[in-house]
């Protein structure tokens, strides 16, 4: 990847992370850990890859993204705001009773949100339905779904995977945000989803394993998915929960907790230097 583009993406990802901290700090709740872990993937997709238009957010031919791990809403809102779908200032209204920015995304309230999610395991089915719709219409749009590694403990994920593969949905790319932590602890201690790649492979997916914070690797994987025919692709992205904020990294306690004033200052200072 061109150095200029990479710098731009790094800057965008840092802004997305600032938005996540800003929003959860203001809300005094929310899920910063799993939002920070998928920030680079979202920054890449929204600033380099996806055919979308903030001026025409529901154009029929657009690429679509389903945040199946809906609790990472702060990350989705932040990248949408950064991309110009709505004012970044609104991120501070997250989870407030007067806000359109719900704790988990609602597609009817927020420009650019393609599916309401929050109940784990359900978003991927909707993404599969969108990809099927694209195939019926012979429309060239692509569908992306972002799942948590804890989320894939849900049985519905595998119902959806089996169907996507059976229907040869090569317009579907699934990301597994493999930050290795879920609410009750490390995923392999709670109810191990490992080996993850082998499971998707067994369900007929083209499977790629990458560093989910490396833009070159994200780009290569996304492009490989686009050229893979007759079946969907799963990108298992190794990530760090809380990535970019030192005291949040790899700490399960930051799954669903907001920073206090002091922590907020420190997090923003760290992210300013990125």
């Amino acid at each position, binding site marked *: 990847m061109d150095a200029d583009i990479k710098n731009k993406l790094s800057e965008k990802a840092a802004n997305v992370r600032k938005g996540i901290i800003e929003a959860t700090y203001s809300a005094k709740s929310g899920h910063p850990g799993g939002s920070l872990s998928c920030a680079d993937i979202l920054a890449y997709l929204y600033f380099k890859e996806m055919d979308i238009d903030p001026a025409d957010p529901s154009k029929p031919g657009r690429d679509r993204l389903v945040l199946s791990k809906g609790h990472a809403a702060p990350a989705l809102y932040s990248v949408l705001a950064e991309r110009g779908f709505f004012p970044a200032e609104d991120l501070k209204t997250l989870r407030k009773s007067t806000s359109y920015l719900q704790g988990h995304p609602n597609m009817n309230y927020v420009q650019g949100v393609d599916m309401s999610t929050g109940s784990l395991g359900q978003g991927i089915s909707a993404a599969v*339905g969108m990809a099927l719709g694209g195939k019926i219409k012979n429309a060239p749009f692509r569908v992306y779904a972002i799942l948590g590694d804890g989320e894939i403990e849900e049985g*519905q994920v595998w119902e959806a995977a089996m169907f996507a593969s059976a229907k040869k949905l090569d317009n579907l790319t699934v990301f597994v945000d493999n930050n290795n932590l879920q609410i009750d602890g490390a995923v392999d201690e709670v109810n191990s989803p490992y080996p993850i790649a082998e499971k998707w492979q067994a369900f007929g997916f083209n499977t790629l394993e990458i560093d989910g914070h490396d833009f070159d690797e994200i780009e290569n994987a996304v492009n490989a998915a686009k050229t893979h025919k007759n079946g969907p692709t799963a990108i298992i992205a190794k990530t760090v929960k809380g990535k970019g904020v030192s005291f949040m990294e790899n700490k399960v306690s930051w799954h669903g907790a907001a920073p206090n004033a002091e922590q907020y200052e420190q997090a923003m200072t760290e992210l300013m230097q990125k």
Partner: protein
Amino acid sequence: MSDIVKTATREAYGKALVELGGINKNVVVLDADLAEATKTIMFKKAFPDRFFDCGIAECNLIGVAAGLSTTGFTVFASSFAMFAAGRAFEQIRNTVAYPKLNVKIAATHGGISVGEDGASHQCCEDFALMRSIPGMVIINPADDIESRQAVFAAAEYEGPVYLRFGRLPVPRIFDGSYKFEIGKGVTLKKGGDVTIIATGLMVGAALEAAETLQNEGVSAAVINMPTLKPIDRDTIVEAAKKTSLIITVEEHNIIGGLGSAVAEVVCESAPVPVLRVGVNDVFGKSGPALELLDIYGLNAANIVEKVKEGIKIKG
């Protein structure tokens, strides 16, 4: 009675889908390995490119329907009532109803008349489950004529709809002039002593009961209530005021379905006794459908008894 043509409402559903699919190219149908039984197989044969079998995976079925609808399709997703409203309840709630998507959940094999398969497949809870979801439209047609119109009305309506069809062939009630409208009850017989409000399979039994009552000197009105939600408040209130006694009849648990919906309206707006005929908060069992309907009190004789009980309360 033997020369009366009987059609299962699921059969009428299948035929209506084919008719609809011919007119509306945006209709896509999904099933979960029950296409033979739900009759979506008719659509599959007519429009193989717009039919998709999700296999035995109802939760995914509903999610796929939701996603498909966002790409501009009117989606009918079918399974048995037990596995659609029951198993996939939360998927319907969160991925279809919450985002107000244009998905029609067309469930067949509702109620006790599933018959021999027994309690595991006899869904008498679907109205209650679906009624509890904000914005859900619930339609339970009584015969083939009403089923056809309900399918077309559901397709025309933009948003989530739950349709319940039955396995058992039932006699035709309506003629060609019948007009179904979402949210409207239909008075089938006028009467001054009691109003019987029935839905789906039980409309026929309600008419039969009214005839028996007539011979015994009791004038019973009969209202067909195909839409359980939004419920037709005006028609219910008018009936309560006019006859001061209401009997509800449904092939569903007496908790949470038509009886509850009617009682809620009556209590709020025109308090009079409401007595409910339905499955009396028990699980069903295996047996021929018609036998089961008698065993669980879903027949004209039991409606007549309930009316007499009501008249005593009314005084």
